[in-house]
């Protein structure tokens, strides 16, 4: 394997904005056809049912229109023929950092992943373009029967669990991008937590896009068996390319009776990334699924994590923070489907728009007519910094039946030039003043994060503000 070691260092604006050249062994080339799918299946040695699943999904993808009748017309700027759908150095994730090829390893070292793993994580998966380069869990966690591997390995080694739940929470045709992911998915995590096992430390996945004109389509499936608990965190970065990059993941969570899943995302995509992600969880009796989602960066993010509360006593929660800098659009929200009695959901969404940045909140809460004892609470707050920022809120709350309760609150606050001047008069530089206002705005949410992540988030906000004042 050759390595052309010419690092293109450009780290002024963001920690992820750097790139080392890497030699790829497998490259599906530009564009997406049935042959691309076959190429991916061959490389990954997919079983026949997956090959068929992918080919069907491709047809679905091709037949579905771009959702521009409600979503951003910027979607039309994605040129699917100019994207590479699969790039890897091989499909086998390494179990130790020493085995990870040097050219890939140094990227993760620079992002601090091995160090974080030593410090506070129960397991780590590090995906580089299409495949996980590294995946490992602490021995003690493995001994409890916890499975934490890449999706390909999960499919091959644990077909009985994988096949039972794969594609069951988010059907292929849920939306155009879930269909796309279903056709070309690669990487992502497969996690199974046995009954009663409570994983003390978080499992972490890190998604890194390194190649230009590339699409990353990871597929994550997490199953928490009865009474188990797990916290999963994902981080992501990409260098800043001239051309658009596509990230389109599908994440399915299954919490069986009494289980708890917390899924935390801190995304810091560079401003050329289209980030179109479908995330949904299925909560059984008395189970709890909580999405904590921080969207920083990207060109356009569309993401509405959801929870289907399928059985009595299930709980769903979405806590989200979206920060839209100049020229960015964060189109985020939450979906709560109450499908049983006594289910409760909570949505807290905070968005910040800077300069010409734009934030949109879309919420969907459904409580069926025949149900009783269901509760939803929705709060969405927007902070506008500078007058030309834009924020839109589209809450759609469908509550039938008198025995259910819904509460909805929304607010918009503004940080004016006058307020920034006031802060600056105390000696605080403009970027720091804006950070202070933003951190104050999201502070109550950030406190729900594990310490390491709240520090990271604060740092990302600071970087974004520095970038915005130039």
């Amino acid at each position, binding site marked *: 394997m050759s390595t052309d070691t010419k690092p293109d260092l450009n780290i002024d604006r963001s920690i992820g904005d750097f790139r080392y050249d890497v030699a790829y062994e497998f490259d599906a080339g530009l564009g997406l056809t049935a042959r691309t799918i076959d190429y991916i299946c061959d490389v990954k040695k997919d079983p026949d049912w997956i090959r068929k699943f992918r080919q069907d999904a491709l047809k679905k993808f091709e037949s579905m229109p771009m959702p521009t009748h409600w979503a951003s017309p910027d979607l039309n700027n994605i040129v699917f023929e100019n994207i590479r759908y699969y790039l890897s150095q091989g499909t086998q994730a390494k179990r130790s950092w020493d085995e990870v090829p040097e050219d890939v390893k140094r990227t993760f070292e620079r992002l601090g992943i091995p160090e974080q793993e030593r410090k506070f994580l129960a397991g780590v998966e590090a995906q580089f373009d299409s495949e996980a380069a590294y995946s490992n869990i602490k021995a003690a966690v493995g001994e409890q029967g916890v499975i934490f591997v890449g999706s390909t390995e999960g499919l091959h080694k644990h077909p009985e669990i994988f096949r039972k739940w794969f594609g069951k929470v988010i059907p292929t045709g849920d939306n155009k991008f879930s269909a796309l992911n279903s056709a070309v998915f690669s990487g992502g995590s497969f996690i199974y937590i046995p009954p009663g096992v409570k994983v003390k430390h978080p499992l972490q996945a890190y998604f890194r896009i390194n190649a230009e004109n590339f699409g990353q389509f990871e597929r994550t499936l997490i199953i928490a068996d009865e009474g188990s608990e797990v916290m999963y965190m994902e981080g992501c970065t990409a260098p800043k390319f001239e051309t658009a990059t596509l990230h389109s993941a599908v994440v399915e969570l299954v919490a069986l009776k009494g289980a708890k899943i917390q899924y935390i995302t801190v995304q810091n995509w560079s401003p050329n990334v289209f980030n179109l992600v479908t995330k949904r969880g299925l909560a059984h009796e008395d189970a709890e699924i909580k999405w904590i989602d921080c969207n920083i960066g990207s060109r356009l993010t569309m993401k509405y994590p959801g929870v289907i509360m399928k059985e009595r006593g299930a709980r769903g929660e979405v806590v989200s923070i979206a920060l839209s800098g100049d020229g960015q659009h964060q189109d985020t929200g939450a979906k709560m489907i109450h499908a049983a009695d006594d289910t409760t959901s909570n949505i807290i969404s905070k968005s910040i728009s800077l300069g010409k940045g734009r934030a949109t909140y879309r919420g969907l809460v459904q409580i069926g007519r025949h149900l009783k004892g269901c509760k939803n609470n929705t709060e969405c707050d927007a*902070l506008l910094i500078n007058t030309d920022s834009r924020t839109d809120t589209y809450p759609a709350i469908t509550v039938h039946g008198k025995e259910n309760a819904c509460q909805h609150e929304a607010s918009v*606050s503004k*940080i004016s*030039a*006058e*307020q920034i*001047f*006031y*802060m*600056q*008069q*105390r*000696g*605080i*530089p*403009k970027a*720091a*003043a804006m950070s*202070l*206002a933003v951190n*104050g*705005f999201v*502070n109550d949410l950030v406190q729900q994060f594990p310490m390491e992540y709240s520090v990271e988030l604060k740092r990302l906000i600071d970087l974004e503000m520095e970038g915005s004042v130039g």
Partner: protein
Amino acid sequence: MSLHIENLHANIGDREILRGLNLEIPKGEVHAIMGKNGSGKSTLAKVMAGHPDYEVTKGTVTLDGLALLDLEEPDERARAGLFVAFQYPMEVPGVSIANFIRAARQAALPEDAELDAVEYYQDLYVKMDALKIPRNFTSRAVNEGFSGGEKKRCEILQLAMLAPKYAVLDETDSGLDIDALKIVSDGVNALRSPDRGFLVITHYQRLLDYIVPDVVHVMVNGQIVLSGDKELALKLEAEGYDWVEKETLATA
């Protein structure tokens, strides 16, 4: 060493508000400015602080030899040693007083220096106690929902915590009850020092009974037209501004 304003002209939009203002406050002195509503007193404070709405068309402001107006950003001017206690302090939602002042203190330190949190809070509490600001204010958002008097007290708290070289107090007395006026004045007097100059903008001579000025200036139409000692304030209070305007028109 002084805060020296020379021939300062400033506009808002097309309208000239400051029209050749001259004023020098030597370090260690307290100067007061009085003048009618709309004469440009607050404008002077904001122009020096670098408010983005105003354009300086002529003149200089020199702070201990430093050309203050050459510093673009308001925070640079603040760190150079200028503090303004505003007539109408802004609310900063979501930012607690403690975090706000802490960020200001941190900004004053060299880049790699870390603020000592314990020391900071000790200092903050001592100064809050002196100004009779209840401790629970530390966690309240800056000025949000504060009464008029509470806002003014909080400005003086910031002044005390930031210990600038020169402080402009813009109508800090308005909105204060009689006890608060005494408390705030004591706070300001405690900060008087040979190393610090004050410019106190007020409409009421009573404040000057508490904070006794070295010089009193009268501002008319964007200029300082008359300066004198404390007696001038008494005379203004008794007789109003008409005579000043007549006199200055006569000599113009």
